[in-house]
């Protein structure tokens, strides 16, 4: 039996370039886009980030 664990949510906007630069997060040597969240979604969930 195959059970789905996770699948990407539909995004209203793609390719907007608003995402944070990958190297700013933690490691400065091996950060990857896989560790990143969509900045648009993050801001929608945290409206104060739109200040």
């Amino acid at each position: 039996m195959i059970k789905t664990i996770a699948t990407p949510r539909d995004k209203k906007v793609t390719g907007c370039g608003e995402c944070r630069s990958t190297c700013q997060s933690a490691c400065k040597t091996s950060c990857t886009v896989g560790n990143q969240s969509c900045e648009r979604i993050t801001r929608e969930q945290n409206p104060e980030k739109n200040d």
Partner: protein
Amino acid sequence: MIHVFDYKDAHYIYDTGSGSLHECDKDTADYLKAKYEGGTMPKLSAEKTREIEADVKSLQDGGLLLCPEVKTAPIKSDEVKALCLHICHDCNLRCRYCFADEGAYHAERAFMSERTAKTAIDFLIKNSGNRKVLEVDFFGGEPLMCLDTIKNVVAYAREEGAKAGKKFLFTTTTNALLLDDDAIDFFNREMENVVLSLDGRKEVHDAIRKTVNGKGSFDLVIGKIKKFVRSRGDKNYYVRGTFTARNLDFSKDVLFLAENGFDSISMEPVVTEIDDLAIKEEHIPEILSEYETLCDRYLEKHEKGEGFNFFHFNVDLEGGVCLHKKVSACGAGNEYFSVVPNGDIYPCHQFAGEKEFLMGNVYEGKLDPAIREKFASNSLFTRKGCENCFAKFICSGGCSANNYHYTGDMNTPYPITCDMMKKRIECGMHVLARKKSGQK
């Protein structure tokens, strides 16, 4: 393509086309591995085979398995959105593994003047186009040796940013040696993120991270970092360690950090050519096993309500970045740049001081178009050997600087880095599955 992998008694299928992760039983995993990745087909009953094929068809029809990969265009923009300001090329530690030549970047030790830093801010605002949120990280050397400059630059950026309709997010990376109450207060007010260097166990940290007098720095920084983290509230920080060939049992260092109250941790493989520290091919089996050990202990901690955030296990399959970003890599040399103390601009901090990558100077305000185009055209699709790798949409073909420094070509990934990356991704997927199922 699909990637079928086992994590001990758990079995997973990751579909690169849809970005979906599925869990299955061992028979299904063995069957799919044999059918899609080659190998021996397991002996299964006709009924089991029909069941698997029906599941696969259902998921395929729903766009969750065996989906064709879309060759999405990388994000290409003329906007500059982030700068790494090397606020000083000097350091109050002499860490053996430092890729920045113990802070000096293979040149004379130097401090960035306030004027240069403010000119860099002007450069960023001027070249940021329609982008509203801009990022600046203060890097070194050791940035806290220049705290007054940082304070003035932050105030300037806030003021100029407001005039131009821009919001700044600041980050500082520090060894915490000068992290006093004043710096803590400032960081908590102004820094979106703070990265604090601490390698883990005292003996591991002290073996590498020494003061200019040659003494270990652990006892000098641990109390300060704890105090800072206690004061940080819900704001972002990372306690960031480096592991080398001398502590391949680095899961102990991550757990040591967690047990000392740090709940946001990163532990990175060293980037060095120093023989007794460098990660080599013969270390890989032990490192991959160590990531599994860390993953198991990490989940045990979560189960006990003592969970923490380990940077590399955060594989965000649901709310992660869009496909355009996934194929675009980090943006170094195109939308993200490093500025060294004299105002010279490089593609990123790992290229700083390498004259063939000098792109301009903030006082001239221009970027070398040929070098920028070279970096802008880098994407997953220019990386060699990534086409058939399951991790491609998560790592984007790796770090241009690491690729270049290890293989001589920005578009040729370094196999040792790839091995570690793939294992971390599998662990991250296992963590995601266990957290979602509420098990272990």
